[in-house]
């Protein structure tokens, strides 16, 4: 029965080793997908490379179906699995600021670590910038506290909001993602440009 670490009282040292091993897999998956390149990531927003869309939604659906399946066969207790808490305004405003950071900087935090690992110097600057951004948020927190804490809805699920079962939502997401993949494949043909593999 999972999750293993909270249920079996795993020692902190072993838990940290698990963190490292999971990170290895995370890093290999991101680098193999091509997320160590900012120009490949940014391709998403100009249509010439929609790898981000394909990897992101395939990964999310894979994990979602896995969780539903493991729960169905009794291998995981979903009550113990962490569900992100929803604070209406901070999620939206935080997301908008991150989106601006994405198109300007070309990375998100996870991909910047993958890019630095193969020697991208621009990723190092992105990471240094994000440290400063976090520092500024912490130092100016009283200014944002009201926004940060407003409208807490708790760990609410999208399936609950829509009033459907988790499995049906997963099915709906698969249909929507398949349509988006189709649009993505079309976009890559329409906005095709010369191969930049040698430049990245």
């Amino acid at each position, binding site marked *: 029965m999972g*999750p293993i670490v909270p249920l079996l009282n795993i020692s902190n040292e072993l838990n940290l080793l698990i963190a490292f091993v999971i990170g290895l897999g995370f890093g290999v998956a991101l680098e193999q997908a091509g997320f160590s390149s900012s120009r490949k990531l940014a391709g998403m*927003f100009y249509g010439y490379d929609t790898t981000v869309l394909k990897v992101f939604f395939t990964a999310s659906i*894979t994990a979602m179906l896995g969780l539903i399946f493991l729960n169905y066969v009794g291998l995981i207790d979903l009550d113990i699995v962490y569900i992100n808490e929803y*604070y209406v305004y901070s999620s939206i*405003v935080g997301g908008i600021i991150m989106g601006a950071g994405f198109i300007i900087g070309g990375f998100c935090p996870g991909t910047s670590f993958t890019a630095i690992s193969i020697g991208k110097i621009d990723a190092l600057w992105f990471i240094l*910038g994000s440290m400063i951004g976090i520092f500024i948020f*912490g130092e100016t927190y009283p200014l944002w506290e009201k926004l940060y804490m407003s409208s807490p809805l708790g760990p609410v699920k999208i399936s609950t909001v829509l009033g459907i079962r988790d499995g049906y939502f997963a099915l709906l997401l698969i249909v929507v993602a398949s349509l988006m993949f189709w649009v993505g494949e079309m976009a890559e043909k329409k906005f095709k440009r010369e191969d930049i593999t040698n430049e990245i």
Partner: protein
Amino acid sequence: MENKVKKPKNYMNPYLAGILLGMVLLASFYLTGRGLGASGATRSVVVSAVSTIAPTHTANSAYFSKYTKENNPLKSWLVLEIAGVIIGGFISGAYAGRLKLKVEHSPKITPRKRIVMASIGGLLFGFGSQLGRGCTSGAALTGMSVLSLAGFVTMMAIFGTAFALAYFFKNNWI
């Protein structure tokens, strides 16, 4: 010398890479009850640096004091996970022949401009990830997998904004 003319291996098929990433994420849920993260590791390093330099100031800070328990970054789960990401990325890049020190930039901009833009983008992303309680990994990808509404909202805000602003930054990429 031979390495210099050798072409790097192709990237993995994106759908296959997505399944691989999804399996890693699922393993994280099964083993620990939580998904993946990235900006939390950066915060852990920032908090420990600030509290080493100015411990009283950090203890009095309404935000940083929430995280001083994870004072030693070598004992933070996310920091160890990100150490794994860096080594995993290195192994994958070495295998594929992609290891190279460089500033990756569009031929239309200078390396210096790329570095300035990367720093500004990082600053915004760092700030936004604190306000939004997590980044693309911890809030959007992980959140969506557990069907959290916050995950879907954060994902749409990040990608929607990047699409909306893409026109203004076209020369930086194409």
